[in-house]
């Protein structure tokens, strides 16, 4: 990184620890959907690492494999999806050796969930029990994971958790349907933090809420990530949001990561033509208007992927070799990108 000081100031949680301490290490992860006519890879050779206290954004369109990646990371995947290769190594903060989540049994996973890794889903309504008061759901989770906390202790902790996301204690008596969408989403975030996880995975956490609430939720996540201290993987189709809120961003296209780097680098100087197209797909709020074109064509069907670089049919700068060669991620000063134009001519 050319500006280490700046990187550090952006991730204050990492201040006291080695800056590159990794909490999650994903190597060559491939997830396939097994159909009657063979397997379709929805995630192909994904390699990612997440540092403590960092917010990693994953952006992609429909069919880019981002949801598949999340269900694989959290081990929530169901047939016909299956992880066919790669590893997901989780490194606990207390210095114990890392564990590969891919090989864990259902029981071991259940123990890990909530206390080390938790999930916030797009639809808060699905995550909350509709026939249980909000506070009781918190007490339930807390008492499962901390049996000696006691009923009163759990209630106090619930009040504390709700206050963290700006929900007053009297709301604990409410049922989910009595709350607004934004409040429900904040409540699920508080619930995900109940057992002080080291990693929170958020799947489109702000898609179902309005812009103002979106901003409030992001502000809360940014603050909380510093205080209790956890790393965040945030998946969304809205790159403009990630550019503002994430430390690093990975761009997915057709099941692969095509570019990964700091938010600033991806905005200022995107190396992959798809990233560039995506960045230029958001009309400016204040800058002078000019006609923008977006990216012609549509995202590909994973069952019928184009040969070579899957982006080549839509790519404005493609060369002949793009049709036949699948590019690998190339390290650049501030990011990595998978585009043949970045690989030296002779090695194409």
């Amino acid at each position, binding site marked *: 990184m050319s500006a280490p000081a700046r990187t550090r100031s952006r991730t204050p949680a990492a201040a006291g620890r080695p800056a590159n301490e990794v909490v999650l290490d994903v190597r060559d992860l491939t997830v*396939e959907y*097994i159909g*009657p006519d063979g*397997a379709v890879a929805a995630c192909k050779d994904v390699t990612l690492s997440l540092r403590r206290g960092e917010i990693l954004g994953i952006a992609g369109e429909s069919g880019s494999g981002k949801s598949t990646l999340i269900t694989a990371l959290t081990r929530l995947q169901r*047939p*016909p*999806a*299956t*992880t*066919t*290769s790669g590893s997901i190594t989780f490194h606990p903060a207390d210095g114990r050796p890392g564990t590969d989540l891919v090989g864990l049994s259902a029981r071991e996973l259940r123990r890990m969930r909530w206390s080390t890794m938790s999930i916030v889903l797009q639809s808060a309504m699905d995550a909350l029990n509709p026939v249980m008061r909000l506070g009781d759901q918190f007490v339930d989770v807390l008492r499962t994971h901390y049996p000696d906390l006691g009923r009163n202790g759990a209630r106090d902790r619930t009040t504390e958790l709700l206050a963290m996301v700006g929900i007053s204690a009297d709301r604990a008596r409410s049922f989910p349907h009595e709350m607004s969408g934004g409040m429900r989403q904040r409540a699920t975030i508080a619930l995900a933090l109940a057992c002080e996880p080291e990693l929170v995975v958020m799947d489109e956490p702000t898609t179902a809420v309005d812009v103002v609430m979106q901003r409030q939720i992001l502000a809360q996540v940014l603050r909380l990530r510093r205080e209790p201290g956890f790393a965040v993987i945030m998946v969304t189709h809205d790159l403009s949001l990630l550019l503002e809120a994430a430390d690093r961003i990975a761009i997915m296209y057709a099941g692969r990561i095509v570019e990964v780097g700091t938010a600033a680098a991806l905005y200022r100087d995107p190396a992959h033509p798809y990233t560039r197209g995506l960045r230029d797909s958001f009309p400016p709020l204040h800058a002078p208007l000019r006609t923008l074109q977006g990216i012609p064509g549509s995202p590909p069907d994973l069952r019928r992927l184009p040969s070579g670089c899957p982006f080549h049919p839509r790519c404005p700068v493609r060369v002949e070799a793009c049709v036949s060669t699948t590019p690998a991620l190339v390290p650049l000063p501030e990011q990595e990108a998978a585009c043949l134009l970045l690989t030296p001519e002779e090695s194409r």
Partner: protein
Amino acid sequence: MKTTFLSHPKVRFGLVVVGFFVGLAVFGPWLTGTVLGIDPRANDISAIAAPPSSEHWLGTTQFGQDVLAQLIAGARGSMFVGVLAALIGTVLAIVFGVTAGFFGGRTDHILNFVTNLFMVMPVLPLIFIVSGYLQGTGLWMIAIIIGVFGWAGGARTLRAQTLSVRNRDFVLAMRMLGESNPRLIGAEVLPHLGGWIASMFLSAMIGAILAEAGLAFLGISDSGAISWGSMIQAAQSQSAVLRGLWWWFVPPGLCIALIGTAAAMLNFGVDELSNPKLRSATRRVVRRTRRVERAVAADARTA
């Protein structure tokens, strides 16, 4: 979609069995007349209540009638009642249910009232009364009675489904273009109820075949017509069970059970076709996925 529907073993079984009985109903007279050469009503005095033999493959009744010939002729009677009653019931259910659901308001109130009335009516006593009135109940009349008294539940289901479809965006969009109500119902709403209607028809058919058998057993039937129900009724009246004449009542009973099972199997297929969520969760998908997982694990061990 069609290929997955047909590739289902349950569906194939259902189709083959139902098709077989439909064929039996259609070609029955020809089969008994030409192939077997036996009139189901003819009395063979030389063989009274005879067990299965080379001459009478399924034996004969107390009256010396060939059971196989009767079974084939009975297929026609039972299937006729089943199909006609199901047709009448399904059409009534569509007319009442879809119309009520689509138009809502006052139309819905009136039609729904009638539907509820038919739902709470004690059907069996009513059938007794009606058939008592209409002396000489032929199979036609039986089918009509069963159909007319058995549509209310289906209308309920269709009304609920129509309610959920009628305000979908595509119906609103076509309405906004100026599409007429009959066309909106026929071209936009009904295709979405196809799965429901098909499974309603199948279960109505089974219901009607059973009801006909039940009514025949209770003595409400056309004494001249042959159906599986009237065969069992005749066997019962001649104390066939006590006398161990199993070949008289077991074959029609088995036929009823078989066609019931077959229609249920078809229904499973229709269900999965109209509900993709059921499809993806099938055991086959899980098994296929687990197989790949095991292969991956084995590879990892050898590597």
